[in-house]
């Protein structure tokens, strides 16, 4: 309500000013756009009509609303702008299609754990190499100076030096504003605190992460944890699984050389240690005495075989992590050497921390590994697969011979059809933890705790490293104009997004913001970003940049 009245006031002032200046016919005040005495035909061309592609309200209400807001702000500035909600699949098709036919859009990047490494958010989505149709740089941002730094951080194997580069990259992005981050969502989740304790909450992943299964302890004789999901998981084959939740479970069945610690530092896990011999050579020493669930020992041959299998089978999901590998050799009984094509800084945090170790004695006999259903998955991780019932549940039990035994006897990953079903099951005590972010109304319901119904639940809040943003096609007018983009950053009501649409559960955005605060190690706190909603200032920036308004009040591009 407040916003609307604000707008009305603004509109009234505008109309009054317009009338005043047409009456006077004198443009003495150069910050006011209307009264310009330049004839229309001498002005630049009209700012083209703009369409903001966005989400359907049921898919993402905030993006839907924000996109309408921004379109309205632009209309007030004399630009024909409209918001066009569309299905997510269709939106992706437009953004990644060959035609690249779009002006601007709202979408988001989810905060998956490997994105804590800055490579994805710095290089993949901003480097000009990826600015062609199908690439992840859907803003078509091209800046040679930035490219250089993005490349350099990828090659820099020294973490502190790399951090400097990543900071510098963030400075350039904040200045150039290739996109405008609107908000990040907080990960609101919950678990049953009367039955279990010692959960770990990780940015971007929430409660059902890589570590909670290790740390969680039962408080009663209920020793099997039931985790609720409202999304389906696909299959148990690490070479073909393409669902996020499939992977969140697979990484507990299969072990990995390195795991990212709860504070997001790489920690030697199935590896005893690693050694960066030089920029393109990494030696990994395997931990001794590990066995697979079927009792066979885990050897360096298994490790070499697994990595090569992933490379040979062209596993799409990991493609970008594996292409830097040139060759893998076994140097002695417990050491594997990775030779890289070129230095690749995320090698430890992404490649070593993602690729699972498969038992060679099983997989070498399988003819078509990608098509294999792997119903009795055998790994060397902390949990053994008991049963996978498509669309219903995944049942896992504790692997007693694991070097770091877990405290629960196993867990069940139960699949529900709707979040409402999960909430009922939580209330009844049938499930003990959620694996996804609660919908806002459920967060509120649990927080209000009417009649003490949710006394046994603990609400947890985690920061997300992902973000939702307004993307702009920099190949098109007016977004090719940096000042226009900066002005745009002043048209987004960041507080409205956070306080009203997200009920305060989240974080504010800003122009060019890419690595959000939640990613503490890599976020550059000293970069000034355009993060205030100030349409007045937007207008000033446009005037300074040479944008003009014609006799009909329509915005025109600067004269070239």
């Amino acid at each position, binding site marked *: 309500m407040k916003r609307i009245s604000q707008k009305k006031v603004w509109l009234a002032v505008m109309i009054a000013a317009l009338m005043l200046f047409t009456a006077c016919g004198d443009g003495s005040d150069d910050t006011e756009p209307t009264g310009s005495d330049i004839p229309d035909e001498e002005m630049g061309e009209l700012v083209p009509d703009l369409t903001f592609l966005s989400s359907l309200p049921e898919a993402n209400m905030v993006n839907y609303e924000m996109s309408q807001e921004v379109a309205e702000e632009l209309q007030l500035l004399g630009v024909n702008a409209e918001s066009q909600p569309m299905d997510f699949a269709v939106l992706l098709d437009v953004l*990644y299609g060959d035609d690249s036919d779009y002006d601007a859009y709202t979408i988001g990047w989810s905060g998956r754990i490997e994105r804590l490494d800055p490579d994805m958010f710095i290089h993949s989505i901003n480097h000009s190499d990826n600015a062609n149709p199908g690439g992840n740089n859907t803003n078509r941002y091209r800046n040679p100076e930035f490219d250089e730094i993005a490349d350099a951080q990828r090659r820099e194997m020294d973490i502190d030096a790399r951090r400097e580069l990543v900071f510098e990259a963030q400075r350039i992005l904040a200045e150039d504003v290739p996109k405008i981050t609107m908000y990040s969502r907080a990960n609101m989740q919950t678990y049953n605190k009367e039955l279990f304790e010692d959960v770990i909450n990780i940015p971007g992943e929430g409660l059902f992460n890589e570590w909670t299964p290790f740390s969680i302890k039962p408080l009663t004789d209920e020793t099997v944890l039931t985790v609720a999901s409202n999304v389906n998981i696909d299959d148990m084959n690490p070479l073909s699984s393409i669902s996020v939740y499939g992977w969140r479970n697979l990484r507990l069945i299969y072990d990995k050389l390195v795991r990212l610690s709860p504070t997001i530092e790489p920690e030697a896990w199935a590896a005893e240690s690693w050694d960066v011999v030089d920029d393109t050579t990494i030696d990994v020493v395997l931990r001794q005495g590990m066995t697979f669930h079927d009792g066979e020992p885990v050897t360096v041959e298994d490790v070499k075989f697994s990595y090569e299998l992933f490379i040979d089978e062209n596993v799409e999901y990991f493609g*970008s992590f594996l292409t830097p590998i040139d060759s893998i050799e076994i140097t002695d009984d417990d050491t594997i050497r990775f030779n890289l094509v070129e230095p690749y800084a995320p090698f430890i945090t992404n490649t070593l921390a993602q690729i699972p170790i498969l038992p060679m004695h099983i997989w070498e006999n399988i003819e078509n590994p990608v098509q294999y259903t792997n119903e009795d998955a055998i790994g060397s991780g902390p949990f053994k697969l008991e049963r996978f019932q*498509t669309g219903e549940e995944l049942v896992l039990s504790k692997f007693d011979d694991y070097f770091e035994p877990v405290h629960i006897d196993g867990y069940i990953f139960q699949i529900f059809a709707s979040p409402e079903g999960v909430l009922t099951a939580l209330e009844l005590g049938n499930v003990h933890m959620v694996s996804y972010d609660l919908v806002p109304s459920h967060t509120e319901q649990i927080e209000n705790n009417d009649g003490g119904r949710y006394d046994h639940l603990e609400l947890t809040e985690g920061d997300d490293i992902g973000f939702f943003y307004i993307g702009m096609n920099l190949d098109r007018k007016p977004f090719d104009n940096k000042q226009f983009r900066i002005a745009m950053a002043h048209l987004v009501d960041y507080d409205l997004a956070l306080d009203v649409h997200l009920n305060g559960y989240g974080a504010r955005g800003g122009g060019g913001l890419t690595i959000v605060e939640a990613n503490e190690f890599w976020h550059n706190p000293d970069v000034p970003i355009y993060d205030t909603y100030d349409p007045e200032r937007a207008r000033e920036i446009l005037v300074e940049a040479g944008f003009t308004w014609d006799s009909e009040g329509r915005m025109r591009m600067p004269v070239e």
Partner: protein
Amino acid sequence: MLNYFLKRLFVMLLMIVLVSTMIFFLFRTMPGDPTAFVVDPSIPPEARQQLLERYGLDGSLWDQYKVFITDLARLDFGDSFFYNRPAIEIIQEKLAATLILMLTAMVFAYTMGIFGGAWMAWRRGSRLESLGITISLIFRSAPTFWVGLMMILLFSVRLAWFPAQGMRTAGTGGGTFAEMFLNLDFLRHLILPAIVAGMYFMATPMLIMRNSMLEVMSEDYIEMARAKGTKERHILYRHAARNALLPVVTAGALFIGASIGGQVLLEVVFSWPGLGREIVTAVTRHDYPLAQGCFIIISAMVMFMNLIADMLYAFLDPRISYN
């Protein structure tokens, strides 16, 4: 008779090919492609291309169609993109869950419907009759998901008589059919959704039965039976109801055919792992083989049950003959 049957069967096959073709092209004209659902769009373009090749979507539409139709001739729907398993396997698993739920609901609905309908016709004009009609219509018009939610609230949350969702208690059950379906735990989970679905379906057989009973009751032989002094109940069920059953049979046969698709909303409310839910997600995920398989099987079932209903007529009503 046999001739007629074979002719119908042949037409049915033609129809299935036609429907399959329509389904095939319908899905491919849908905007978006299956790679959009691979975790998220961050995979590089080359990887998307690889994925399309793996799914067999890289060739021309015509080539894809040829593969599809030859596979179909061997009753092979292809591998589900998402599950990485033959689509037919997934369909079988889900179909069992859906059919058990729907048939239980049907038995409930048709038993209540047939007896209730007959009784209501007999007591025409009474207050109880209008009460019966009102109740059955209320359940017919109320959204099933809402009724489902209310039932869960009452019987699961407040009274804790029945489990709130799913097909079994988490972590129990196993791989075999018996382990999955032939146990008390499953039965406990089945009752609530089956009753909700049954209440929803009940109005159809009940009102059909009532109307057709009213017609039958004006026949001379009912009068005759009365005149003989036969007991009321005897006339109702032995003489009238049997003859009034015919239209209900048709409705029932068609119901079985259509029920394969399940009650999507109910499956969602009760987290019932049935085919209905699977179809919806398969379509949104652009899992063509799975979605195509589901729709082809549904249309085949509807056609087949239509045929069965027509054949049953000949047996139930001697006036109908297909020669």
